[in-house]
């Protein structure tokens, strides 16, 4: 369990082209928006490129490219796929 916790990261911190799986989305006001855009638990997601100041970041999920600010990515917990 400790190991799992240790391995979990949030979406804003993953490195480019690393495929991860969404494990949880925090109960923030942004949560409904994220789910509408297809970000739900169990979905695979990958950061593909970043804006010039490292924020926002573009992710690929289900063949779509979605851009998110770091503060929004922080609401999404991921683990190694």
């Amino acid at each position, binding site marked *: 369990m400790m190991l799992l916790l240790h391995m979990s990261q949030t979406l804003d911190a993953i490195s480019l082209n690393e495929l991860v799986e969404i494990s949880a989305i925090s109960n923030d006001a942004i949560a409904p928006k994220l789910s*509408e855009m297809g970000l739900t638990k169990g979905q695979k997601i990958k950061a593909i490129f970043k*804006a010039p100041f490292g*924020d*926002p970041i573009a992710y*690929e999920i289900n063949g779509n490219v*979605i*851009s998110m600010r770091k503060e*929004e990515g922080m609401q999404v917990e991921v683990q190694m796929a």
Partner: protein
Amino acid sequence: MKIALFGNPNTGKSSVFNMLTGLRQQVGNFPGVTVDKKQGSIKTPNEKHELIDFPGTYSFFARSLDEQVVKEVLNDSTHPDYPDAIIYVADAANLERNLLFFSQLYDLGFPIVLVLNMWDRAQQKGLQINLELLQQSFPDAQIVTTNARVSIGKTRILTALDALEKKERAPFLAFDRQQLQSDQEQTLNTNQRLEKIRALGLVQQRNTPAPNKSTRLDQILTHRIYGYLIFSLILLTIFQFIFSFASIPMDFIDGQFVRLSDWCSHVLPEGVLTRLIAQGLIPGIGGVLVFVPQIAILFFFIALLEESGYLSRVVFIMDRLMRPFGLNGKSVVPLLSSVACAIPGIMSARTITDWKERLITIFVAPFMSCSARIPVYTLLISVVIPKTYIGGILSLQGLVLFGLYLLGILFALGTALVLQFLVKNRTSGYHVMELPDYKNPRMSNVGYTVFEKVKVFVTDAGKIIVAISILLWALATYGPSSRTAALKDLHQTQAFKNANETQKQELDNSLLLSQSYIGHFGKWMEPAIAPLGYDWKIGVALLSSFAAREVFVGSLATIYAVGEDSDGQKRLVHKLKEEKNEYGKPTYSLATGASLLVFYVFAMQCMATLAVVKRETQTWKWPLIQLLFMGVVAYLSAFVVFQILV
């Protein structure tokens, strides 16, 4: 029947709308909000229907202003736009997520046509969609496939509409909208829906897809050096077009209206009505149409950028830079366009979906120094700023001009910074945004956008502009009856008798303006503008230039009885330099000149901007606040500048 067009953003929904309605479409607003409503008529084999295009949304649960409209209309069966049936446009290459909103609408019980658009792109991506299974999952929906970008599928949609029938149906997933109030419940329902849709297994990946070309392009277009470089080049091109090339058709329109006005004065019988038409109405309409080239050109480019998918990359690379000011990445285009003219700039703020960011952009845009300020700046600079060179190279006059532009930009950003704490947000600001694949822009969609924007400006803002310009014309042309006596006195003077015909006309015009209602008003308000270093003549020029800033130059030329031709400009500069106040000091001292320059940087001296802000915010509240705010800032800063320099 009333038919609503729904769908996620970037699904080619507007292509479907344009394909179905052609030119039989008009733009309005949904009641009470600033969300565009496009409407058109369509004819199925059996019937004629009315089609309403709703803003692209991802879900029934509303967050942005656009989404609010969708929810409000769907929740109120007495709403004038409540649909009898729905056409839902889905991106076939992105089916599962697109089915979320569709399934919600399906469960609300509307007769519905599901249009799987961009069918070719789904094929290219190697996606195989099980249509039979899709039909089984939503048995009461009519399902068609289209390729609206190349106008394929129109008859299929129309035939499917005729086949719709209203009947009770079993929901795809229980959807009691009264119960789904909280964020958590909504998210839960959304997640269940998406899970159920994905579990259907509608889409199979046939072969490994080719590497995404868009992502490769994005490596360059969002690059920290090339990305900004390319964006700057694009902006520079747009700017070049609206700043320089637009002046060709603008001068033409201007010239034609002057000729039309002259022609009317000659042909129609002399009288009040003729003067109203020739000098009030025709120049007023000309004053509206003169903006058309800039609006058309700017929206041509914006539509091109939006259609191609590039505009969302602009937001992506500019977000971090604009965020501290409460502005959107998309604010860059409206703000920079405002350096040419705030009218198209403010109209282009429509591309910003967040209401607060859009409002702030609209509010600060007129602080950017537009091209109408240039004649005012150059006149005043050549009168009060000496033609010296700093260190032998840097022109002082040029430096002052640069400073004025900078002042406007800095103040616009500063105001935005403050406003983000003052403007209440109707919805929470977020930036979770789709970056659609790059596409070749569809030129007919670009054409529709240009046509629609020009039409909206001419019909909506045009009315206000014509009305105000006729009012200003009347105030400057008519005056109390004492004018006739003053004119007689003038004609008795030796100076008048010695003058030639042109000079006589100029002296007459000067007297008539100073004795007009505006002239009297200028004298009456002299005490109020004296602390800024202005006399009543400047007051008159300020008042009449509310029509448009460049009128300031023409008004001064009339007051000082010099012609308006290129030679007149030199004579005007000379005259202003010679002009003495009651103490025998120059009226146009450095202090007064600088005070006026600063005044023109800040003041909302443009009725057309006011009219456009009214149209874009759908209320008089914002243009009036803006007028007041800009006026107060202009007055106070002109006061400070004058008092320091005098």
